């Protein structure tokens, strides 16, 4: 794996981006004539509302946690998928196929349960 090249290009892009930002700052200049209204965060003409105490639907957390779980299950399919043909040619095809079928059945039951329990509904 060309780790050196990847690290190099990450550094290059970071430096490139910082230079661009400083260039834009140097040419465009920093905000000089400031007023209270200008430096406020954006709001449609009414006094600013800060982000603190923002109530966010619990659905966002739920989505993130369920994503982690399903993502892990999907990741387990990757090494299985990449070696599936080799398993078949080695004579272990049926065994591996059935073992993944059981895993997938658990996966599908989980997904079906989540959908049925309305955990994934956003309408309310």
């Amino acid at each position, binding site marked *: 794996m060309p780790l050196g090249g990847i690290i190099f290009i990450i550094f290059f892009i970071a430096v490139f981006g910082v230079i661009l930002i400083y260039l834009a700052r140097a040419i465009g200049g920093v905000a000089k004539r400031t007023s209270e209204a200008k430096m406020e965060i954006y709001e449609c003409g009414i006094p600013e509302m800060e982000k603190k*105490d923002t109530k966010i639907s619990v659905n966002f957390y739920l989505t993130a946690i369920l994503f982690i*779980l399903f*993502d*892990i299950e999907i990741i387990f399919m990757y090494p299985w998928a990449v070696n599936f043909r080799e398993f078949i040619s080695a004579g272990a095809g049926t065994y591996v196929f059935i073992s993944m079928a059981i*895993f997938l059945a658990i996966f599908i039951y*989980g997904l079906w349960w989540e959908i049925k329990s309305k955990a994934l509904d956003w309408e309310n």
Partner: protein
Amino acid sequence: MSMDAVLFWFLSIVVIGAGLSVVLMSNPIYSALSLVMTMVGVAALFATLNAYFLAGVQLIVYTGAVMVLFVMVLMLFDLKRELQAFSRGKITGFFKIAGVGVLAGLLVGVITFTTQKTSLIAEGSPLAADIAAQAASGADNTKILSENLFLKNILGFELLGVLLLVIAIGVVALSRSKGGTHARD
């Protein structure tokens, strides 16, 4: 110094530096972002050990999923109160000292283990032979991984599926419970 050694030292410094900033930063958001950096560094270290698939999994699961949840949750709270609560007080002082103690113990343990040159895996065992063969080939070890996972330890693999199902159901059940700060309204 060979190129691999340079890479190893560079990545070690990145990981340790990022790991230290997780505990030293007073702003929880910075801590979480440093933890992301640590995870990326660990993934790169996996890649230096030829564990490419593991590196990819580290990237997808830890930086792409787990840390997103951490950062999302942290960003939704008013952090000023937490900043004060965790930067002073006797209880946090105790935790700090205890944390330093545990860290020091771990460091001593790691140094003694690595300098003794004795591997935890017994010489001549099949696992040691496997590892030696794989290290000699330097090839991708996804095949060994999937062989272990899907042929040798199939029960553990299926139980893991059940465990993930239990977690998924538990999460939904917890999010339904009334009261507390996370009640659905």
